[in-house]
């Protein structure tokens, strides 16, 4: 069996989210949840003396923009579900408290491969995370895989 999809979807933006405002409290809650204790992420005084002069989020905060608030409502569907295979994240600029964040997503690649466990498909969705100044904050490649 091969994967049934329209090749025209590759590279085409399928979702652009409305901006989401990031608060210092959300960054603090995220730090508390992951067990991050570095004061530049949570303490305004320490952040002022830190490299950015104000509170920034730990790098992996960018992964939260996909969840709940925006879970790829328009994601193209393939095969029988599949599972989350991993993430490749490139960090370009930090997220600051007060930023308004947008995600622009497209299908980066789709391929099939037959391995020991049979025929599998692999899909990579790339989300570019941008702030209110239209600066790129990060590129997130979400890798999914499933059986054909």
């Amino acid at each position, binding site marked *: 069996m091969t994967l049934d999809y329209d090749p025209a979807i590759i590279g085409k933006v399928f979702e652009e989210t409305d901006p989401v405002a990031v608060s210092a409290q*959300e960054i603090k*809650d*995220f730090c*508390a*949840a*992951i*067990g*991050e204790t*570095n004061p*530049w992420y949570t303490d305004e005084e320490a952040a002022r003396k*830190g*490299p950015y002069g104000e509170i920034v989020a*730990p*790098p*992996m905060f960018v*992964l*939260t923009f996909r*969840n*709940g*608030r925006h879970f790829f409502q328009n994601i193209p569907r393939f095969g029988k579900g599949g*599972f*989350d*295979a*991993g*993430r*490749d*994240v*490139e*960090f370009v600029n930090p997220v600051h408290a007060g930023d308004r964040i947008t995600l622009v997503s497209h299908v980066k690649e789709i391929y099939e491969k037959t391995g020991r466990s049979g025929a599998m498909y692999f899909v990579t969705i790339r989300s570019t995370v941008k702030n209110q100044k239209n600066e790129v904050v990060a590129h997130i490649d979400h*890798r999914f895989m499933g059986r054909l």
Partner: protein
Amino acid sequence: MAKQIYFEDVEVGYELTPLEKNPTTQQLVKYAGASGDYYQIHYDKDFALANKLPGVILHGALKNAFLGQLMTDFAGTEGWLRKLSVQYRGMDLPGSKVTCKGVVKAKRVEGNDHIVECDIWLENAKGEKTTPGSAVVILPSRAPR
């Protein structure tokens, strides 16, 4: 904060200070709330079991966050985590220790950037690498500009 590490301080094979975590079901609920990922396999045991899982499991993104912390602790105030890639290969359950580890795989200078590449992974209490990956950091250099 630990002392700043410089590009010249690390060689291939250098081992990063491991970061140990002891995730609990309470931590998974906190992460669900903080990230907005309310998929029930991370906090509802009946739901997880009905989905043929051994119990509630850690969010992949939480494991990413642990590995992110390993790298930002390493890079320090003057470093920058440029890339982090992980593969969600194995499941991890709360109530058991996980440890983030890393080793320097390569280092190079590109323009003004002093780049260090690491193999990183999260391992369970049995020492199995459930979440392998790689990371790229820019470190400050002692060399005059």
